[in-house]
């Protein structure tokens, strides 16, 4: 059986990729994708700890399903905002979307 640490390392690597994407990408869609990666890294962690530590409980998969739902909703809202911003400003670069800046 694959040891638990492998899953954790995978999740950490995935989280770091996502984090890098969030911090380094200029494209708002890229940032959004990074956020999705980080969320999924968390999901892997959750599932791994559930399978190895408390397989009798159902809280782990239930938590992951809720995170999926929230992430889906978040992506829907985020993409809608980006489309709206793009229509108005004709760009998806996060630094240029500064409508709230005084």
């Amino acid at each position, binding site marked *: 059986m694959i040891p638990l640490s492998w899953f954790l390392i995978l999740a950490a690597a995935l989280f770091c990729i996502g*984090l890098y994407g*969030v*911090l*380094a990408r200029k494209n708002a869609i890229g*940032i959004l994708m990074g956020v999705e990666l980080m969320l999924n890294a968390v999901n892997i962690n959750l599932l791994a700890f559930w399978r190895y530590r408390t397989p009798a409980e159902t809280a782990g998969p239930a938590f992951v399903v809720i995170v999926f739902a929230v992430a889906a909703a978040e992506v829907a809202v985020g993409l809608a905002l980006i489309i709206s911003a793009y229509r108005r400003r004709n760009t998806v670069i*996060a*630094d240029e979307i*500064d409508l*709230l*800046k005084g």
Partner: protein
Amino acid sequence: MSIATLIWLIPLPPLLAFGLIALFTHRSKGLSHTLGVGAALLSWLASMLVIWRAVRLPDLGQNPITSAVDWFPTANNWFKIGIQVDPLTVVTLFFVAWTIAMIFIYSVGYHNYGQPVGENDRPGLQPHGATVTDAHGHTHRVPSVEPLYSRFFAFLSLFAFGMYFLVVSDNLLSLYIGWEIMGLCSYLLIGFWYAKESARNAAIKAFITTRVGDMFMLLGIVYLYSVTGTLNYRALFADPQMLARLAQAPSYIPGLSVAGMSGLLLFIGTVGKSAQWPLHVWLPDAMEGPTPVSAMIHAATMVSAGVYLVVRIFPLVSAGWAESGAITPAMSVIGFIGAFTALFAATIALGQNDIKRVLAYSTISQLGYMIAALGVGAYAAAAFHLVTHAFFKALLFLGSGSVIHGMEHGVLHTGEHIDPQDMYNMGGLRKKMPVTFWTFLIGGLALSGFPLVTAGFWSKDAILTGAFQGGHWIAFTALALAALLTAFYTMRQIALTFLGEPRTQAAAHAVESRPSMVLPLVVLAFFAVTLGWLGIPREFPIIGGALPDFFENFLHGMAYAVPEIEAAGSLIPLFTSLVVALGGLYLGWLVYRRVAPGAADPLAAPLGVVYTVIRRKYYFDEAYDFLFVRPSRWLAETFTAAWMDRGVIDGALHAIARAFVWIGGALRRGFDIPVVNRGFESVGQGARLLGGELRQVQTGRVQQYMITALLVALVFGLLFYYFFVLA
């Protein structure tokens, strides 16, 4: 109505009249004088009824009519105020009622009631006359009505109230109240023509001079009250035990008993009020007031009140006299001041040319006579002279007012610019003003003591007899000399005014005064003659005993303790009064019967420097000005105002102010600006700097925020790891 109630009511009508005139009727001249004269007549009627009832009572002196009510609470009982009518009150009330009533009536005419309003008259100045046009188109200057007519009657009524109140009261405190009311009224009336500076100064002089006396009088009252606990006349003066106690108790001054000391303090009040030397200076200046005021002040009221007071307190000043037979120290002081004033003022009267001023000095002299009589113990004679003098001096003052009035008429008619009061501008008025002349003559003869027919002779004779019988040679000589001078200056006055030929056009055109002025003269002249017959001594040759000596008997009912003096029956005082009266009159006539217009006084050349000194009144005004007026001015202006107030007090305040200004400045420079202001400013600038630095962080770039968050999380993670895992 009981007689006591009636006595209570005597002073009220003038007070009511004063209030009504002052508050309601002052716009109507007719209504005001109706109220004033009506009130005076009501009081006169009440007084006459009281006198009529009182003289029929047996032993009124032992059992006077009294009535008292509680006034204010003192430590353990009530201070009572009340009325008392004894023989002294009766005689005083008699002349007060008559003279006041006559003066009120006279004032109506004197202030030209019914005359047109002068076109140039101003309130506070004498009326200057009005121009009228008659049926033929001629214009005349005629006297004009007094602008402040109602005000005059209001003041006069208050004055009358003060005098009536003083006469009927039964204790020294309410006497003092009446006394001060009159003092106020005399100030108001002397300054009645207040737009004249001389009148204002005279009013202030009169008020302050009498105030000096009043202050001592108040001290006397307080002293007496603190020793005895009462101010009631009967308790103080009719109780032999009380008098004996007061006569023996020593006072603060060695050699003077409590009785003598309080008597002397009260007497100083009289010195001020009755214008005795050395406080006599106010009275001649009081001539600035209208003539009825002069009569009121000089004859009927204020100055008589002073003598009345000394007669009243006579038992006090003479306490111990009856036992030892020698006059008390207080009496000798009183006698000295009286005799000195009598002689001193008579000499000044010789050198005065103003008709009213001569009478003023004559009044001072005659009051000195009465005071001297009290000093030698002849208190009945003093009271007698007080009454007769009140009548003939009121007569003379009103007569002089009538003369001045006639002269003013002449001045208005001719347009001459002369002083209508200067006797050297008169002359020959007997033909122009016959009634005034005859009544003035009667008054003048009474004043000089013309033998047998006039009242003044009998009262003066009584005083000289008193001085002679007591063996007071100095007083007797001084008084006889004063009587000689009195007769002399009276004749001088009559001769200059009425005899000879007119010395000015104004005098030639003078006219007799109106009936309302002449009638009082006639009434007063009647009393100036007949009143003397009430006091003819029994020992008098031939006619003595034909009429009962009412006065002496009546007043001796007062039961004042007086040593028995055997009636010497000497004719010396009688001859003296005959000689001085007739001699003085004859000399006066001899010197002054013919004075040419513009001539100097016939006495000026022979008397030389002495005449100048007399004419300048022995320089008393100048001396007082130098001794008292200027030092007090200096004290007020230089010392108090300039040095003390502006220098010391203001200086200290300014110094304190400057010190605080300096402290405030130092605090501001040393603490407020560097510490407080700079401190808070640097706090503000620090915040601004910090904000300036920190705002760099606030880029609005989410990714930078996230990097920051990541770094912070890493740092904290490392810290946690270091502290919680490794440690």
